[in-house]
């Protein structure tokens, strides 16, 4: 089982270099090979190769799903779901014909839309060359589309569900873990024991949440490292995703906060009375900074990992020197191995810190 798992990882590492190069995309048109990229660039001489755009494109969300396997490239159009002034509007992202520069205008539900980079705006309210970061909320509809990341997340959850159902099923015949359960069970026991240690006697009601968070982050991290479709996404490296996870941790922590927890925050014991309001102020701030740190830590770690790997790969196309692929290939493999560690580590750290915060909320005073 473990042997096969590592074999997959190493095959993934091997495929990484040429597959990532295939992710070079130009207006939805996939360029398959190194030489083709070079040819394209020469014919398009005024537009130099831009690694930043490539990397940004990989790390950002998208309404089109570029399905990429070695030698197979196909773009799927995902549904666009908008909450407009005229209500819910749904259409396929194919209607933009891959345009991301506001050139194609789509008329739906009595309104005109165009897409600037990844942002869908009202065509009549936004000018031609506008920075999408400056578009205000009244210039665009609320976007609830099934984007690439949403689809990837659903996929991650579904795979996780299948894995867990298999794990559960393996117990039906025999109480001894077999097959995939022998890989999953140690992790479950590990997280459960960690929760027990950090939360105390009331740990049991938090274990399902901690397990879900741990496995979701772990699977998202690991699948994010597999460099071909439908994996290789950047889910946990997206601040919106980690924001939601952190908010849920924040809510659970404070909903479960007992008297001792709130006393420590609002009227900290063992502090001179004059200082109490100031300490309380800091403590109140810390309620928010703790989940904030959770959000930033996971997001930054995964984002940085993906960025570094992509940077090493794009170096090949920037330098166009025969020696660079060896050096950057080696560096990529090294980064991949360290990212593998980070995938486990960050999933664990997020879960551990969540458990510690829950522990602070429910622990009875023990000074």
């Amino acid at each position, binding site marked *: 089982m473990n042997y096969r798992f590592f074999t997959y990882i190493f095959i993934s590492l091997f495929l990484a270099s040429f597959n990532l190069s295939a992710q070079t995309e130009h207006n939805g048109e996939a360029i398959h090979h190194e030489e083709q990229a070079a040819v394209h660039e020469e014919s398009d001489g005024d537009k130099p190769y831009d690694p930043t755009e490539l990397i*940004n494109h990989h*790390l*950002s*969300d998208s309404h089109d799903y570029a399905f990429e396997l070695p030698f197979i490239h196909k773009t799927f159009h995902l549904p666009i779901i908008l909450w407009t002034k005229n209500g819910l509007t749904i259409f396929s992202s194919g209607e933009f014909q891959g345009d991301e520069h506001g050139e194609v205008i789509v008329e739906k539900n009595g309104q005109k839309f165009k897409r600037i*980079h*990844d*942002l*869908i705006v009202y065509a009549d309210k936004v000018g031609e060359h506008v920075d*999408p*970061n400056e*578009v205000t909320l009244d210039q*665009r509809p*609320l*976007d*609830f*589309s*099934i*984007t690439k*990341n*949403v689809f990837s*997340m*659903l996929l991650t*959850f579904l795979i*996780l*569900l299948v894995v*867990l*159902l298999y*794990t*559960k099923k393996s*117990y039906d015949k025999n*109480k001894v873990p077999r097959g995939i359960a022998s890989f999953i*069970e140690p992790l*479950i*026991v590990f997280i*459960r024991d960690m929760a027990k240690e950090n939360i105390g006697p009331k740990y049991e009601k938090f*274990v*399902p*949440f901690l*397990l*879900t968070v741990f496995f*979701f982050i772990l699977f998202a991290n690991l699948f994010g490292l597999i460099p071909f479709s439908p994996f290789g996404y*950047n889910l946990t*490296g*997206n*601040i*919106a*995703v980690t*924001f*939601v*996870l952190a908010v*849920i941790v924040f809510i659970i922590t404070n909903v479960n906060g007992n008297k001792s927890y709130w006393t420590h925050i609002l009227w900290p014991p063992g502090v001179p009375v004059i200082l109490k309001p100031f300490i309380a102020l800091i403590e109140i701030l810390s309620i928010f900074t703790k989940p904030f740190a959770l959000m930033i830590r996971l997001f930054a770690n995964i*984002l940085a990992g993906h960025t570094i790997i992509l940077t090493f790969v794009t170096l090949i196309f920037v330098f166009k020197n025969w020696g660079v692929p060896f050096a950057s290939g080696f560096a990529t493999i090294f980064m991949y191995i360290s990212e593998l560690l980070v995938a486990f580590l960050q999933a664990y750290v997020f879960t551990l810190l969540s458990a510690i915060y829950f522990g602070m909320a429910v622990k009875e005073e023990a000074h």
Partner: protein
Amino acid sequence: MNLLHPETLVFWTTLFFLLFLFLFIKLAWKPILKTIKEREKSIEDALLEADKAREEMAKLKADNQKILNEARAQRDEMLKEAKLLKEQIINKAREEAQAEAGKEIAKAKQVIQSEKQAAIKELKNQVSELSINIAEKVLAEELKDKNEQIKQVEKLISDIKFN
């Protein structure tokens, strides 16, 4: 990374996370955790039982030893008693035998004594009879002559000493 429309992922992450959290709890975590807990408990119980059995075994062994020791002690005591009894019996038998023998000997001695007395008596009688007969014959022989008679009387008289 561009985060142009954060509401998309915030909305779907919340929805998916809560939905799958619920699904996982129902379908996976509860049964899996229950199985693990039950198994841990059964292992713990089995270990405890094994410990108990081992303890019982040790106790049993100790009991056996105790019983064995007691039996040995009893056997020793019995042997000792038997030895004592044997000695007593032998002694008694010896004493009795000695007493019996003594009695027999005494009886024999008495019989011998009485036999001896009777023999002596008979011998005496015979001797006296014999000697009277002899004396008669001698006297009859010697007193044939008168002189001789006188001589004899005289001799006898001289033999008698007066004290």
